[in-house]
């Protein structure tokens, strides 16, 4: 509990964070930047879980533990994504999004 | 083994035998034997039917009921009445004739005959089904081999025609499916279980609103395959591109499924819907009759002429069904048989002519009677039979339809339509005579075709197979019409 701060305000912040992530995901031109945006999105969810746990259901730790798992999964995801990006870079010497558009229509 | 299921088993066995038969000759012989057995069974069925009818006065005889999907109450439920028996006989005849006519098929013959027989399985299946679901299954089975038959062995724009035909027919059966589901889910209106059984559903009072909603769907779903105007355009292209035997089977048998379905499902199960909608569809049907006939006048391709003629003649079937009258219905069934035989004969003849002259363009043909006397004579006879000359089956059918149409609904609307439809007999004679006059009579168009091969034994056999019942029905229609009339009794109750 943060004194004087209601859950609404925190959720507002996470929502904004979430959409900033989405904005980044859609507009960034670099695969790694996109990855960064995903971290923002995931973090928004993580904070949500933690805050909801704290504010609404403090006696169970479900939210917190969920958050821990999300962080772990995010790490795994990032690692895998980075490896694919690097592999792609080895092939075309580029990590630009526009170079991943040969399959379309 | 039960007498009706054999109609599924025997063709399937034939297919299996075909799969394992090697060489052109053996393929032909196997399919011929298979088809002859079918014909034998069909003839046997007619006699068995009469015998059974004497002791059994159920709506359907030889019924057999096996639960299939019990949760949907889907049964493998079969049985026949006089109408199905007649149509099964027609199918057997046309299939055998088709096998004879396509004796010379040399490209992928095995596949050809297999597809042909698959088609016939579907048709038999529809005619013996009492269960809506099985009926629908067989209906679709009958349609799909057409794609391959036209696409592989056809001529001209075969890919286009095959696709068009398949898509339009499948679109229709898609509509039909909705209709069938509608019927199914209203089959518990009186508190019973949901059922696909046609005879059971007929006892149920399906709410009028539902009938009005689903009748058009079921009707159109079936009628498209009977080339209902304006959904007939698959038919000319399809026929024109199809190989001979396929045209025969298609026009001769497959298109009959439409009328049969309309009668057996749409009219029987949704009588209130039929009464409500008949005015609309009867306009379409009558338009189709006249429209098809006039279109046929203008065509120059033999097969197109026949295709439009079929539009006209099958329009007559639908028209008759929609008059909701027993005599006309009787006529409709006989017309189905008659048209099936005659149009098959026509297509067979066209195939023979095409096989010899390599053209179907009537402007390039003339005076064939001189060089092909047998084919020419049969062509003229078929033409005359087609335009409803007494002594042939077409006359019997048409007179039943006309008399029937005149009996029911003596209001101006129906009268005008009836007169319009009756007048199509003149237009029919115009295009038939134009055809006969152009290609069979008159001077030989080219002199380098003085010597064409005469009709071979298998061609003659095929033709005679079709000709005999045409004359048989034409000369002595009473037994057939009695058989049909009796079977119509329960069906007409609903719409009266």
């Amino acid at each position, binding site marked *: 509990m943060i004194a004087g701060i209601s859950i609404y305000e925190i959720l507002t912040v996470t929502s904004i964070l979430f959409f900033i992530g989405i904005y980044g995901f859609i507009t960034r031109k670099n695969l790694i930047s996109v990855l960064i945006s995903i971290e923002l999105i995931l973090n928004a969810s993580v904070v949500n879980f933690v805050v909801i746990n704290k504010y609404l259901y403090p006696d169970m730790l479900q939210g917190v533990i969920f958050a821990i798992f999300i962080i772990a999964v995010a790490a795994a995801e990032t690692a895998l994504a980075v490896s694919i990006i690097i592999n792609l870079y080895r092939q075309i010497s580029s990590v630009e999004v526009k170079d991943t558009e040969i399959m379309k229509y | 083994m039960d007498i009706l299921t054999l109609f599924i088993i025997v063709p399937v066995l034939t297919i299996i035998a075909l799969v394992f038969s090697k060489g052109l000759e053996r393929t032909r012989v196997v399919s011929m034997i298979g088809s002859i057995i079918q014909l034998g069974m069909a003839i046997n069925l007619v006699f068995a039917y009469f015998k059974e009818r004497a002791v059994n006065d159920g709506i359907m005889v030889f019924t057999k009921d096996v639960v299939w999907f019990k949760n949907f109450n889907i049964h493998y439920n079969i049985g026949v009445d006089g109408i199905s028996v007649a149509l099964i006989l027609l199918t057997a005849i046309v299939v055998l004739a088709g096998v004879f006519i396509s004796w010379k098929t040399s490209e992928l013959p095995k596949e050809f005959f297999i597809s042909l027989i698959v088609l016939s399985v579907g048709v038999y299946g529809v005619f013996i089904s009492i269960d809506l679901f099985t009926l629908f299954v067989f209906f679709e089975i009958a349609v799909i081999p057409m794609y391959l038959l036209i696409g592989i062995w056809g001529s001209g724009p075969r890919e286009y025609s095959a696709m068009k035909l398949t898509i339009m027919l499948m679109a229709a059966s898609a509509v039909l499916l909705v209709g069938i589901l509608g019927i199914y889910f209203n089959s518990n209106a009186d508190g019973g279980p949901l059922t696909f059984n046609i005879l059971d559903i007929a006892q149920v009072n399906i709410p009028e609103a539902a009938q009005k909603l689903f009748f058009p769907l079921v009707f159109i779903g079936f009628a498209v395959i009977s080339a209902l105007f304006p959904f007939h*355009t698959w038919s000319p292209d399809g026929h024109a591109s199809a190989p001979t035997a396929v045209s025969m089977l298609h026009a001769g048998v497959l298109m009959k499924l439409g009328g049969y379905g309309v009668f057996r499902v749409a009219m029987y199960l949704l009588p209130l819907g039929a009464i409500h909608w008949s005015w609309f569809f009867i306009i379409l049907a009558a338009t189709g009759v006249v429209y098809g006939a*006039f*279109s046929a006048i203008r065509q120059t391709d033999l097969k197109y002429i026949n295709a439009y003629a079929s539009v006209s003649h099958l329009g007559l079937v639908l028209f008759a069904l929609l008059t909701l009258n027993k005599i006309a219905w009787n006529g409709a069934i006989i017309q189905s048989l008659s048209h099936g035989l005659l149009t098959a004969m026509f297509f067979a003849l066209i195939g023979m002519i095409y096989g010899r002259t390599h053209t179907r363009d009537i402007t390039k043909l003339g005076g064939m009677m001189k060089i092909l006397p047998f084919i020419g004579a049969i062509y003229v006879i078929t033409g005359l039979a087609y335009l409803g000359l007494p002594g042939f089956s077409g006359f019997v059918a048409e007179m039943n339809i006309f008399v029937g149409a005149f009996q029911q609904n003596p209001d101006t609307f129906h009268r005008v339509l009836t007169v319009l439809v*009756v007048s199509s007999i003149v237009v029919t004679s115009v295009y038939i005579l134009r055809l006969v006059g152009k290609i069979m009579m008159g001077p030989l168009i080219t002199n380098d075709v003085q010597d064409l091969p005469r009709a071979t034994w298998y061609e003659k056999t095929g033709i005679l197979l079709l000709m005999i019942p045409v004359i048989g029905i034409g000369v002595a229609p*009473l037994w057939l019409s009695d058989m049909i009339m009796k079977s119509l009794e329960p069906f007409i109750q609903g719409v009266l």
Partner: protein
Amino acid sequence: MNISYTVLIPLIPLAVFLLLGLNSQKIKPAISGYIGVLGLSVSAALSFYTAYQYFLVDGKVDDVYQTFVNKSVWMNFTETLHIDIGILIDPISVMMLVVVSTVSLMVHIYSRGYMKGDEGYTRFFAYLSLFTFSMYGLVLATNLFQIYIFWELVGVSSFLLIGYYYTKPSAVSAAKKAFIVTRFADLGFLIGILIMGYYAGSYDFETLNNPEGSVILNGASTSFMGLSVITWALLLIFMGGAGKSAMFPLHIWLPDAMEGPTPVSALIHAATMVVAGVFLVARLFPMFYFVENGFALNIVAYVGAFSALFAAIIAITQTDIKRVLAFSTMSQLGYMMLALGVSGYDGHEGVGYMASMFHLFTHAMFKALLFLGAGSVIHAVHSNYLKDMGGLYKYMPITNITFLIAALAIAGVPPFAGFWSKDEILVAAFEHNKFIYYIGVFVAGLTAFYMFRIYFGIFWGKEKTYEHKPHESPLSMTIPLMVLALLSVVAGFIPFSEFITPDKVGFEAHLNYPLAAIATGVGLFGIFFAWIFYKNENSLSDTYAKAFGPFYKWASDKFYFDEIYLFITKKIIFNLISAPIAKFDKKYVDGTMEGIGNKTILISNKIKGIQSGKFQDYAFSFVMGAVIIALVFIYLWTN
């Protein structure tokens, strides 16, 4: 009277037809000719025997000729409505049996000579047998539907025979025309039958024709557009009859039908089939007479009268001798119709009916004779045209004499057959309708004129140069000529009124001398003019033709009726109905179906851009999809 044996009369020709038709390639021509003649002889003998039995031995009960029926059901509609096939023996059917048998037998014999050497010899006899069978079936019919069935069959035999020379385009088109025009007329017939079946509840002649029966008594009860439905039905049925009997305006097929072999013209298009229309009206005479006071019958009278006049005028101008005869036939058929139209029912009132049948009978004899004679001439000179003929009397004496007899008969010169029958017609017309009577008299004059025009043209006049020297026809052809000539002389003396009347009670007919004198005078007058114009080649005819100016031209072009029909068929049906429909079908009906398919593919191509290959676009859609679903289903569309 036991009539069961009469079944054989139609069945024998049928058997002959099947025998010859199925084996046309195998049977030798000579043999097939014998088979045909033999078969028909038996039928004819049976017919004559029937006539003898019926008229003279046991056909009458209490002075009324009885109707004998022998039938069985062929097709069931309802309990009461069914089509029967059977045999009906009454005065007119027996009379028709005699006519058909006689002429057909003569034509069969004649054809053996005329058709010799033709490659389709067997086929020809098969067709003839088919026709004869159908005609027997028609005249013996017990009900409307049976008559319609055989009506169609005679139509098709006519088609086959006109198109006998099927490699000749003109023959083919004539055959087509004949079939289609009569088929059009039959459409009316059929609709008439349907109406009759519905409102009268029966097709049976006995039921329909019964003057005390419910059909006639209640005939006027249901009306449609001011007329009783039964009248409508009768008019439509008459339309069928008019088509077969070449009444104006459905006559156009008859002249063209002369493309067929000449014996065929004699048999079908002069003596038998074309009178089917007259026979049909006669068959339904009580209905025509009683329903709505004979309204329909009046129409018959006027159509007949007009046709008689119309055809006679055209006949004057034609140069093809067979066409002249054809128009003459049409004219005489009009005469018969006219006679029916002015007839009454009871006793002597029925003189018109009697006269019509009488004329039908005599006409069959002398018109068949005329055609066969013309055939003999054509056989000799190989041309149909008057301009190729002349002075044949010395080469063809028998033909000449028999033709003259026939011409005199048709001209109404006593004591030849035509005089008697035509006289009775004029009497009937005089008694009922003066206007029609005048037409009748005028036509009688015209008839004599045009008939002698061709007679003189063929046998007299200037001799033309012939490629082969003309010679008299063989015996097989001249014997029928002589037989028919004999009949044309004596037929007039048959006391027809004893046998054939509307109410089936015979009456005594006697000559009305003033009227007979006028008719004969007019006929002789016509012959006289013909003699002046055509006995020797001169320019008088041309002068007069010029005097009539355009009228002559119109008449010789048959008042452009062919052109009108051509216009209707080619321009209207073919170009204005069929062609647009075919185009409409291709463009709009098919186009719509195609369009649906093409549009689908077009849409498919149009929207391919959204699968852009950029996963960020995909993400955009993803988020937008989620947001929009949320927006819509949470806030906008809640239920």
